[in-house]
């Protein structure tokens, strides 16, 4: 039986060369993210911004009229109200946080019910007061920071300093660009987004660790192989696995994007892009980064006396 091969068995692609493109590209994207993050900012959901979100579904016989709902909702005078079509035939309405502390939000619900109860059912109502949203921002931030710290600790115990440094650069790169994705796509940033970011941290690290496990193994086997060659070999020999896992993960996420429903679509899209991002950064950022900081106990320039490498090539 002829089996599917997503990546050729024997590849000798010079991945490290491409750092000339990947480094400037990632630097540019990271800077752009920071700039956009500061100027435009994230599209915070009510988890973090506070306010009221309702999802209206037309009652039997009625149809969703976004324009009419927008007109009515804006007429309440609650400030900038976002009205959108949502999923199949539903309408989402997002009211900003009202003054008057925790009780100020009650009036929003009263008016919304009075105006829309006749034609729509309230399929979802979420109200987050100013205090809760503040706490969620805090715990979200703590979560991301904590995960980076935990990852650092793990890498510190598990890997040599250079490898750990490379991995952390890759992980930070992925966090920054994921945030950039949120800024550009205007996908709502809420608690689920924090879950997406933390999962991406886990996945990013996973990708890097698989390559670096191999790097470490090869370092022991080929003590004198030039760093660039060693890193290329690490990636080439793990590439079929990397492509395979990225594909299976992406396939399951595609299923989630297409069939998982509106409520987790944002999460799924971000994760899907995140998987691509993590795979890219492991190969083109974390690994070539090691060239610049050098591998400890590993000679960087001894192209002449490379018996181990020669031996290895002979074995193939």
């Amino acid at each position, binding site marked *: 039986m002829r089996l599917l*091969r997503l990546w050729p068995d024997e590849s000798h692609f010079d991945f490290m060369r491409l750092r000339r493109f990947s480094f400037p590209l990632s630097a540019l994207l990271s800077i752009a993210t920071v700039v956009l993050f500061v100027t435009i900012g994230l599209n915070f959901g009510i988890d973090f911004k506070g306010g009221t979100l309702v999802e209206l579904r037309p009652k039997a016989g009625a149809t969703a009229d976004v324009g009419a709902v927008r007109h009515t909702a804006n007429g309440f005078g609650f400030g900038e109200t976002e009205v959108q079509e949502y999923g199949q035939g539903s309408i989402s309405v997002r009211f900003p946080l009202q003054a008057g502390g925790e*009780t100020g939000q009650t009036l929003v619900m009263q008016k919304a019910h009075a105006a829309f109860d006749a034609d729509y059912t*309230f399929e*979802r109502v979420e109200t987050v007061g100013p205090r809760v949203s503040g706490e969620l921002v805090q715990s979200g931030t703590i979560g991301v920071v904590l*995960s980076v710290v935990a990852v650092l600790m*793990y890498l510190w115990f598990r890997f040599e300093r250079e490898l750990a440094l490379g991995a952390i650069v890759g992980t930070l790169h992925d966090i920054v660009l994921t945030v950039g994705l949120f800024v550009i796509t205007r996908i709502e940033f809420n608690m689920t987004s924090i879950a997406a970011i933390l999962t991406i941290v*886990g996945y990013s690290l996973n990708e890097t660790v698989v390559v670096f496990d191999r790097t470490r193994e090869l370092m022991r086997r080929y003590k004198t192989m030039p760093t660039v060659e060693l890193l290329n070999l690490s990636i080439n020999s793990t590439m*079929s696995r990397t492509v395979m896992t990225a594909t299976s993960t992406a*396939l399951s996420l595609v299923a989630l994007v297409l069939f998982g*429903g509106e409520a987790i679509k944002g999460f799924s899209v971000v994760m899907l892009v995140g998987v691509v991002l993590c795979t890219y950064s492991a190969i083109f950022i974390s690994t070539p980064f090691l060239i610049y900081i050098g591998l400890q106990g590993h000679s960087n320039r001894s192209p002449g006396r490379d018996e181990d490498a020669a031996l290895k090539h002979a074995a193939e």
Partner: protein
Amino acid sequence: MLRFSTTKIVATLAVIVIGLALAVPSFFSADQRKAFVSSLPGWFPTWIVPTRAIVLGLDLQGGSQIVLEVDRNDLTRTMAQQLRDDVRGALRAEAIQADGGIQLTPRGVQLRIGDAANRARALPKLRALSQPVTDAVLGQTGANTLDIKEDPNGTIRLDFTDAGLNARVRRAVSQAIEVVRRRVDLGGTTEPSIQQQGADRILVQVPGLQDPQRLEEQLGKTAKLEFRMLADSPSGDVDMLPSRDSNGQRVPVERRVMADGADLTDAQPGFDSKSNEPIVNFKFNLRGAQRFGQATSENVGRPMAIVLDNEVVSAPRILQPITGGQGQISGRFTVQQANDLSVLLRAGALPAKLTIIERRTVGPGLGRDSIEAGKMATLVATVLVVVLMFATYGIFGLFANIALLVHVGLILGLMSVLEATMTLPGIAGIVLTIGTAVDSNVLIYERVREEVRAGRSIPSALQAGFDRAFATIIDSNSTMAIAAIILFFMGSGPVRGFAVVFILGILTTVITAVTLTRMMIALWYQRFRPKVLPI
């Protein structure tokens, strides 16, 4: 690696069979499970039948979640009013007048006694109002409830201490939880979950609720019922309160409370025998009946105000003394309102106002849609990944696919046993897991292929593949675990469901991808002894 002892095979299969069996109850409703257990013959040991099931989160089954917070300011104000009464009583007992009365401050009360001799007499009495703070958990804390300061010019300030306030908030929260529980129970909702959250919050979760607005209204009311006399005109001891009878216009009501809701033993909705208007019938306990009887005897012919949460509901004229301890409240209620009020009165008053600080409601229709979408996504993801694995690794892919299905089954089994909550993000976690779980198999298979290419014999390649990939599998799962555990501890509600799925998924991967696949491959190799590895 290629020798799997019979004991090991039996143990592995047993773990898997038990794990999968545990998931079975989650595919049936609670009623179906009960019916099944009772349909078993009497001799059958029922404890062996798994009955615990995954709990559906409110986002999947529909329902309301409300977070209430005890309003500290409101509580402090109530305490200050009480303190004012106590101070007044203490001074009256000593026949001392405070110059200009007793003022409420944000943290207590203050008064001025210009006369030094009087002040010296009053102070010990005021100090006696301060009591040691006791705490259910900590016992005697050594702190007092009041901080009493005296200015040289004769002003005395009585401030609540932080310890005193905190103890009172704690007590208020536990009292409020009881009241909220009674209100929700009496309201007829099924399986509510009511628990304390943090120092001053109450989390109320009610599945499948049709009318969340009504629940909110019921929980938002303090339901403090007082019987006071209507005054003729505004004066010192009179409050101006809004009245339902005259459309919110304020009417003068005496400050003295003749009887209050704390003495009620029962309240039921009913209809007035003459006007047929919905009313609430109430019954006092002995103390309440005595006080009410005395008050009505002394005030025949005058209107008595029935005050609910500082609003005059109605002010009927006392026609004759009411000594039986029973009465009725009318107030142009609808049937629903009369019903709700009787529930509130039976459940008792809240010690302080509760503020809704967070509310999340999902309609049952949306919940059903989410479950359907989740099932569909899971199915499609499974098919895609299974096809990919089979196309890439042939028979080995088949082994991986069996392991994958067992893996998902085991996650569900563990969640059932833990009675964990499945949420929409949790379903997303399952779908994502389907994609990532095969990573372990991919790592092993790719390694085996490499070893074969490097010239190893089949058994030795398989051995090396499993051995060398194992360290990487542990590494890569640990990295995912780090993120998942942090998410579990900081996430709330639905997001936590995602973390649970992920953590359990990491645990089961080790069983399925490593042990189960290894066993299948070992048995397959022993049976067929292939010359070439088909991957």
